[in-house]
């Protein structure tokens, strides 16, 4: 977000401290990516680096431009939450060839050996946790709706599949509708309302992320169905956790975004200092399920320490 | 004594000196006619007096009190009302909307008082003997009718000074008669009227005082009774005007334009026939005139020939070859080109220079394979500028910096650059001053000598009587009379066009 990069910009012109670490995330107006960026930036400063935070709005071309910029600024390392498993291979390779190690967080790319590390929260595992909680909440039966993320986003697919793997084992559970709400709250709200009109006999809603889950909650509340319907999301955003405490949502799979970002920066530091990160490339961090029972234990995309 | 006076008014537009220190006064109860060639500065002076343009230097006084107009509205509120040379109506609004635009009659509730407006509108239209439903869209009206709306709007504001800049350029004679009657009523009520028109005799007829501008300077003032047309023309042009209508001997060649039983539906109104079975022939070296009243269909005839509007039946042949579905450009390529009636709307590209406008139609002639040959183009353009005597500082000047007459010459020059075999001109003298008129007609004659076939329309009896070798009178889409030059009188003409009572004008014997 704003503050970090502002101070960064003033910093970046003042000469070379520990060098520059470029942090690139999809969009700062989503709490998850923001937490990621903030955590990474904080860690990097702590380790004595300048930082620059930018976002690519899931536009592969813009991402490629941002990486060019990092290269021409002779960044020491790049922390990247990328804009597409395939579309990002080129740019990451480009950075590698320029001698800049790239540390991927949150999303993988479909190629190994170009990025120094790919630290991703285990979306499949998280999805399964969420789905299991969902099934429990629905007492293994009934009609449910799935709100999926942007079709052209890898994680949307991974999570949807993760949900299916679990839920498909319960024949009594019936998916009555599945629509994409592009990760967006208002779109989720509108589409949920429309679906309710089509079919009021719904016991559950499982969404590809918390923003959409909260949109669904608002719609269900308006229709007076919320007490009869369990809603499960993904990400573990503060708003979702609040909703869980309030009993409006059943559960969400929390991705330890902050953790991944911090680890990425630490490994970047190691790589800059002594050439190797000391970890293998593919690292996955397990998600944690957040329910009313344990909600208090969690802060901003991380367990409270 | 005088209501409105402007003293030592100057106006500079970018590089142009429209006015160079002009004193002007309008007296109550009198009609002051303002004469001057195109670009003399008439409209500019009037716009300044009506608060539309601000003078570069100079002062305006109302009833002797100096004023500085902040806007057209300000001037209107002090009783100075202007009818603009170029129509300023909203085509998307009804007549009544236009009549009361900006000065709505409102009810207590603050809403527009439609009922009151409609009755007032109907009344004024009746006085103008133009009984149209006030709810009619102005866009559906003919040029002439629109001009009447413009006049009606001015009349609705109780003006102390009424400025009329070319109010009759699209009016038929009877409409002009009506207008004159109203002007006399106004002056009787002590209104000061300023009247500008290129129909000199008409203007002289209504005038009490005469003022002549030349190149932005005031060159003469007089009482209307003391002067005649000749004098006015001398003052305008600065020298004796050789006759408007030079005699010429015609050498007729073979038939270039052949029209047989042409039927053209009215584009604006598809089951009214604009042209209803017209047959006519024009030979090389011949100038044929089309006379008719507004709406007679002359424009439609010419536009149909040019390929602008589709024909329903009949045949058009150019030098024997029948033109069927040829596009406008194919017709131009074959040597048939139209000089349209409304030069602003159809003749000129305002964003381009004089030179670019001139070469637009004949452009392909300068194309060497794919590219334009600039040198060829420039020579051709500057040759044309001298040929048609366009008054411009350079071919690169923006077309907007030219006055009406000169713009018209550019449009004609553009047509000549396509070296046509048949030249169609729709109202070539509309809104053009005597000097330019003479030039234009001289041009037509010259082209005819060079073996072109010329077909032109006019609404002015004088031109109809003297210019063409043959005159065709068109009425409601039919040819109702054919005369050869000299063989007809003004009276014949009026009778034939089913138009109006011949007007009794002093300036007629010229």
């Amino acid at each position, binding site marked *: 977000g704003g*503050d970090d990069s502002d101070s960064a910009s003033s910093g970046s012109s003042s000469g070379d401290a520990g060098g520059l670490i470029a942090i690139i995330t999809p*969009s700062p*107006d*989503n709490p998850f990516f923001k937490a990621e960026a903030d955590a990474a930036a904080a860690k990097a400063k702590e380790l004595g680096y300048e930082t620059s935070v930018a976002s690519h709005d899931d536009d592969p071309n813009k991402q490629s431009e941002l990486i060019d910029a990092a290269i021409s600024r002779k960044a020491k390392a790049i922390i990247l939450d990328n804009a597409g498993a395939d579309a990002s291979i080129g740019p990451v390779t480009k950075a590698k060839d320029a001698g800049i190690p790239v540390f991927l967080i949150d999303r993988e790319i479909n190629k190994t050996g170009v990025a120094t590390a790919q630290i991703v929260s285990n979306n499949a595992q998280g999805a399964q946790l969420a789905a299991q909680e969902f099934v429990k909440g629905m007492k293994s039966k009934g009609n449910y709706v799935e709100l999926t993320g942007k*079709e052209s986003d890898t994680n949307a697919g991974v999570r949807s599949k993760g949900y299916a793997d679990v839920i498909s084992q319960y024949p009594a559970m019936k998916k009555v*509708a599945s*629509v994409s709400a*592009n990760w967006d*709250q*208002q779109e989720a*709200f*509108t*589409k949920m309302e*429309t679906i309710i*009109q*089509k*079919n009021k006999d719904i016991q559950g809603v499982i969404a590809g992320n918390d*923003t959409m889950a*909260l949109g669904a909650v*608002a719609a269900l*509340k*308006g229709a007076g169905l919320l007490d009869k319907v369990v809603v499960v999301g993904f990400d573990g955003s*503060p*708003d979702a956790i*609040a909703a869980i405490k309030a009993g409006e949502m059943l559960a969400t799979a929390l991705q330890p975004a902050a953790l991944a970002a911090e680890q990425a920066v630490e490994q970047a530091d190691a790589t800059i200092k002594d050439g190797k990160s000391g970890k293998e490339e593919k690292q996955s961090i397990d998600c944690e399920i957040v329910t009313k029972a344990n909600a208090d234990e969690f802060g901003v995309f991380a367990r409270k320490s | 004594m005088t209501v409105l006076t402007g003293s030592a008014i100057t106006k500079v537009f970018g590089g142009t000196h429209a006015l160079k220190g002009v004193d002007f006064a309008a007296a109550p109860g009198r009609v002051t006619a303002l004469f001057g060639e195109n670009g003399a500065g008439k409209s500019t002076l009037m716009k300044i007096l009506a608060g*539309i343009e601000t003078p570069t230097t100079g002062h305006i006084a109302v009833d002797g009190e100096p004023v500085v107009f902040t*806007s*057209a*509205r300000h001037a*209107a509120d002090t009783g100075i009302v202007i009818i603009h040379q170029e129509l*300023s109506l*909203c*085509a*998307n*609004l009804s007549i009544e*909307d236009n009549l009361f*635009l*900006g*000065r*709505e009659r409102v009810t207590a509730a*603050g*809403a*527009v008082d439609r009922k009151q407006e409609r009755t007032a509108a109907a009344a004024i239209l009746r006085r103008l003997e*133009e009984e*149209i*439903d006030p*709810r*009619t*869209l102005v866009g559906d009206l003919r040029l*002439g009718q629109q001009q009447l709306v413009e006049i009606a709007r001015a009349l609705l504001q109780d003006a102390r000074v009424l400025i009329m800049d070319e109010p009759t350029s699209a009016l*038929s004679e*009877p409409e002009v008669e009506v207008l004159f009657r109203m002007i006399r009523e106004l002056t009787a009520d002590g209104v000061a009227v300023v009247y500008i028109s290129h129909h000199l005799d008409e203007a002289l007829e209504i005038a009490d005082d005469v003022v002549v501008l030349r190149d932005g300077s005031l060159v003469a003032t007089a009482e209307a009774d003391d002067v005649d047309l000749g004098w006015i023309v001398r003052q305008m042009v600065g020298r004796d005007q050789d006759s408007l209508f030079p005699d010429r001997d015609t050498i007729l060649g073979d038939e270039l334009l052949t029209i047989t039983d042409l039927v053209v539906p009215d584009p604006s*109104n598809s*089951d*009214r026939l*604009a042209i209803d079975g017209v047959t006519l022939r024009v030979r090389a070296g011949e100038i044929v005139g089309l006379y008719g009243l*507004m*709406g007679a269909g002359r424009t439609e005839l010419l536009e149909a020939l040019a390929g602008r509007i589709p024909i329903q039946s009949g045949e058009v042949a150019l030098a024997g070859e029948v033109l069927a579905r040829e596009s406008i450009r194919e017709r131009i390529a074959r040597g048939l080109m139209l000089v349209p009636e409304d030069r602003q709307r159809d003749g000129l590209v305002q964003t381009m220079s004089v030179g670019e406008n001139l070469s637009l139609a004949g452009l392909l002639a300068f194309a060497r394979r794919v590219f334009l040959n600039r040198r060829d183009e420039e020579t051709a353009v500057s040759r044309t500028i001298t040929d048609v005597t366009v008054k411009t500082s350079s071919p690169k000047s923006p077309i907007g910096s030219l006055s009406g007459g000169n713009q018209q010459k550019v449009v004609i020059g553009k047509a000549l650059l396509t070296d046509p075999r048949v030249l169609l001109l729709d109202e070539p003298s509309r809104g053009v001053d005597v000097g330019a008129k003479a030039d234009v007609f001289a041009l037509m004659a010259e082209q005819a000598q060079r073996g072109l076939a010329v077909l032109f329309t006019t609404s002015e009896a004088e031109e109809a009587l003297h210019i063409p070798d043959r005159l065709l009178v068109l009425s409601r889409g039919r040819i109702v009379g054919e005369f050869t030059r000299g063989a007809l009188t003004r009276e014949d003409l009026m009778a034939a066009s089913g*138009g*109006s009572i011949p007007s009794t004008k002093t300036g007629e014997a010229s």
Partner: protein
Amino acid sequence: MSTATTTPPPTEERRDAAASAAARANRLRVLNVVFEARAFIALAVLIIVFTLLSDTFLTVTNVITMTKHVAINGILALGMLLVILKGGIDLSVGSIVGLSGVVAGELLGGVTLFGVVAYPPVWVTILVAIAVGTLVGAVNGILVTRFNVAPFIATLGMLYVARGAALLISDGETYPNLGGDPELGNTGFNYLGGGKILGIPVSIYLLAILAVVFTVLIRKAPFGRWLYATGGNERAAELSGVPVKRVKARVYMISGACAALAGLIIASELTSAAPQAGETFELNAIAAVVIGGAALSGGRGNVRGTLVGAFVIGFLADGLVNLGVSTFWQILIKGAVIVLAVMLDQGQQRFQKRGAAAAAAAQTSAS
């Protein structure tokens, strides 16, 4: 009827003129109706098709829900209509939606004055948010009138500026549970988007009220005539003493206010405000206005048509979701419908002209 202007024989002439006059007037009226008819047809087709394909489409509750969705774009479209009537365009409305939500969120979260945190009541919050929207509109207006910046560019610039502002104020975060707190006396915000009167959502009433107000404004007040005149022929309007600049400035402010209201409704529905709300909404609003028979060149269009246009866009979107059509197809179909609806317009107008002419001719020959 080609002799409307020549004198003798007067009798024939006057009859003639009267006839053609009547004919034209009549033709006018028909045309007026047709302008919406076109949009109505598009809407009718949509409704029929969806009703045939889904039994849950044409139910009372679903129509109410869909209308509620339409309300948001409808309110934006009404503001846009005025701008388009004047011959302009407003690309910034989407961003204003986001900005006004953020402002509301900020205020409901409490404002710190001299160290103490004050919680303004909801009505203050709403007024401030709308004021902010109006302000952005005013900037658009100033850029267009004082600095002669083309409306497209001026509002494109403000599209970015307003969005940037929304993100900066909120620091990119979403304002959660705007329900308010009884103790702080700032509850009731969710009524705007969540409340119902006689089972009908408040936002629908808001749309209806605005529609009526705008119709009166356009039809009855001098402002309306000035607006059409400015859009039809600005120079002529100016020469007639119409305060053109003021008219222009006003429409952008009104449009901004409408956008702000839409933003509030959304925030209230979700009881949370996201800075990125409203992205690309401007396109839907413009589409609604144009489908409603307005000309982007200005001077032509009306409230009824615009409403119908908004319903076309809204019902289409919801109908496709109801049918479970894939997002990809939804996008493609939306584009096709926009173009078709407008083509339909063109076609009908040409057809209509001919029809009216015939009618006119008939009358004349009859008299």
